[in-house]
């Protein structure tokens, strides 16, 4: 295998060099899900169409997501003898401009985000010097948006599977020692040391062992794993194979949510290519030592992100958790010792074996080593997928990388850790993002979702939103979660509808603690976190809803009304035409009025008005 690997790698490197130093133009387009939703496939079609008629050989490469979602679709152009330029927000018009540039025209500087190669262009920054990339350290994401995920050669040329070669050469104990030295902790949420989990599995009695990759990224507001699977699937496969080698497994499963069709497609291609290259198959771990990977599609249940529920689902049952211990490392899939790790954890394992534990641990804090990917979304100027050293502060992430709050608004809160996490206010923005610091503040790292909110989000309604999700996704197995989340939701609904009472806050706190203590799995044990943190940091909003019957954010419908401003309204009739309940009257060119008695507060008038004449005002229910 090793001599064979060297040959494969060399061939791949030559192929990669031919691409990067090509004497024909190379155009790469980010066609992961986020790029596609912004129109990347249409952009690609226009580029192909515009350049097809010319006597010009052009190579097109489809890559994954580079990270800055706000700038999608992203197109990178490399012309022979010129600097490589990355263009942002390339719509159809932009695509025509870029095609003209490729055909010998002028560089459309207005579309240029950055240069990405060694050569530079005056006035255009290098990608890593742009504000969005400057604070980032791209390790796990190094290949995303750079390589064609459908071509194993690209990944090989950039180091893929060299970690596996090194792991094969190491003795069994040295592999675990390497992992331990790296300090890698699980990236799925709980942060358990990976070396210990693997060691438990090695020590557990049994002849058959399994590796499972948890790709059931269920946290709403998070897409780190989707991007990684779509942009660099081989990193995940390599991590799984190393896990198989280390614990002595011959089979691995990827449990991927069905809501990610493109990730599933790219995984299937990557597995086939890895099989052809011999990284998977009968001699994957050495002569006569097989390792195979199968993909199982989830069927839409948030609780299946919990490891025992996931295993139940893999076995073809209802995805309901069971009490631990025994932990899956001792008794997992079909009762066999099983290592189950998240997508990013396994990709990090591959990195650690490629570059060494010391390299990996260069970044991070004393107890949280390495880098971590985050989905930075919500009311920030530059939402996207970012990777930073652990220990970076929330402020640096939101204001330096994310560019701060969308124009005209102020920061209010940031939510980390999805439905299991909590909301933090402005004065917590300087805490370093590591497992312990976040926990102390009442939230969790989780898988990496970071949702930023401005003053327009009501924190009581936000807690209600998460409890609605938790109550809906509670599997029903244990009472505290099944009944408790529902009861929390009802109280929060009452408060947001103007029916809250003075004792509600105390009731919420008491009930939250009981649900956390009594629930069987992580879902119920953490579901009250959004309630507790909003009560802790945004108590005044609860008080406002309950005592003065107002919603400070003007978000809860029962506390607001719409009014038309006399001076701004020019009587264009747009709102009256669209009002679904015919609740707006007024003659053309004259002031319009909203009939509060029939208004359903759908907000269509306010959304439609081009003159900003429809105001949202506070109104007691």
């Amino acid at each position, binding site marked *: 295998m090793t001599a064979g690997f060297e040959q494969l790698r060399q061939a791949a490197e030559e192929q990669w060099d031919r691409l990067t130093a090509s004497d024909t133009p190379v155009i790469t387009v980010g066609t992961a899900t986020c790029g596609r*939703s*912004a129109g990347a496939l249409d952009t690609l079609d226009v580029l192909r169409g515009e350049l097809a008629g010319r006597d010009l050989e052009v190579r097109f490469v489809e890559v994954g997501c580079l990270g800055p979602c*706000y700038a999608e679709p992203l197109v990178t152009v490399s012309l022979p003898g010129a600097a490589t330029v990355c263009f942002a927000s390339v719509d159809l018009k932009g695509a025509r401009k870029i095609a003209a540039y490729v055909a010998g025209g002028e560089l459309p500087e207005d579309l240029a985000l950055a240069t990405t190669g060694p050569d530079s262009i005056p006035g255009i920054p290098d990608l890593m010097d742009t504000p969005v990339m400057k604070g980032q350290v791209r390790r796990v994401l190094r290949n995303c948006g750079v390589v064609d995920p459908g071509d194993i050669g690209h990944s090989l040329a950039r180091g893929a599977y060299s970690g596996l070669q090194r792991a094969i050469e190491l003795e069994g104990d040295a592999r675990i020692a390497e992992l331990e030295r790296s300090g890698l902790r699980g990236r799925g949420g709980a942060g358990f040391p990976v070396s210990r989990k693997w060691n438990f599995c090695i020590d557990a009695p049994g002849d058959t062992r399994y590796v499972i990759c948890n790709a059931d990224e269920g946290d709403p507001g998070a897409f780190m794993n989707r991007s990684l699977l779509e942009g660099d699937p081989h990193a995940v496969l390599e991590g799984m194979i190393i896990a198989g080698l280390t614990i002595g497994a011959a089979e691995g499963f990827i449990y991927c949510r069905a809501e990610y069709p493109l990730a599933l497609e790219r995984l299937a291609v990557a597995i086939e290519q890895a099989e052809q290259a011999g990284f998977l198959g009968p001699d994957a771990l050495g002569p006569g030592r097989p390792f195979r990977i199968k993909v199982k599609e989830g069927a839409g249940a948030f609780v299946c992100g919990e490891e025992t529920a996931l295993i139940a689902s893999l076995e073809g049952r209802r995805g309901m958790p069971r009490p631990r211990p025994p932990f899956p490392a001792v008794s997992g899939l079909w009762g066999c010792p099983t290592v189950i790790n998240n997508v990013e954890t396994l990709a990090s394992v591959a990195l650690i074996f490629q570059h060494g534990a010391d390299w990996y641990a260069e970044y991070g804090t004393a107890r949280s080593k390495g880098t971590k990917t985050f989905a930075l979304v919500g009311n920030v100027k530059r939402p996207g997928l970012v990777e930073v050293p652990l220990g970076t502060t929330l402020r640096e992430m939101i204001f330096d990388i994310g560019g701060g709050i969308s124009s005209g608004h102020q920061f209010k809160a940031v939510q980390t850790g999805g439905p299991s996490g909590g909301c933090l206010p402005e004065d917590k923005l300087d805490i370093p993002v590591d497992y312990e610091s976040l926990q102390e503040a009442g939230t969790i790292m989780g898988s990496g979702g970071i949702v930023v909110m401005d003053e327009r989000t009501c924190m009581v309604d936000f807690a209600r939103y998460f409890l609605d999700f938790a109550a809906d996704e509670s599997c029903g197995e244990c009472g505290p979660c099944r009944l408790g989340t529902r009861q929390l939701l009802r109280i929060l609904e009452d408060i947001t509808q103007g029916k809250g009472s003075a004792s509600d806050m105390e009731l919420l706190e008491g009930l939250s603690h009981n649900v956390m203590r009594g629930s069987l799995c992580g879902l119920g044990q953490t579901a009250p976190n959004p309630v507790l943190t909003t009560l802790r940091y945004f108590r005044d909003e609860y008080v406002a809803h309950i005592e003065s019957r107002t919603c400070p954010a003007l978000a809860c419908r029962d506390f607001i009304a719409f009014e038309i401003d006399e001076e701004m309204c020019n009587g264009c009739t747009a709102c009256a035409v669209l009002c679904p309940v015919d609740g707006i009257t007024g003659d053309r060119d004259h002031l319009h009025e909203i009939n509060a008695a029939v208004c359903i507060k759908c907000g269509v008038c306010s959304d439609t008005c081009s003159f900003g004449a429809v105001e949202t005002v506070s109104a007691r229910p």
Partner: protein
Amino acid sequence: MATNNLGPVLSAFERRPESLISLLQAVQESLGYLPPDALGTVARHARVPRSRVYGVASFYSQFRFNPVGRQRVAVCRGTACHVGGARFILEQLERTLGIPEGQTTEDMEYSLETVACIGCCGLAPCISVNDEVSAKLTPKKVRKQFKQARK
């Protein structure tokens, strides 16, 4: 495809209980939903009681027991979409398509559903129509997109 022609769809999977979810996914893929008699066929193939098939099928949100429209419109209710005003998108779609969430238009053209998170959070709010995602939406944009389609 009729339920009694499911043979080729089922035969791709091993006749074991752990194939159950994959079997149901394949049947739904070919029929569009899970009619009652298909559950029996799946039960026999996977060698499990029919009650277990129903138990599994009713547990996961992906499975449907009623036919759906040719265009499945799914509104993302992920956190970023929620913060970006997803409920206004959903309400606008309910008005434009004339059906509440969870229903299908009489002509079987549109179904309206919500989905936990599409994972396109950087471009919220978004919806998907037959798995194709549209992003950075406003009620105005969806009204235009579907008003033309409804005519």
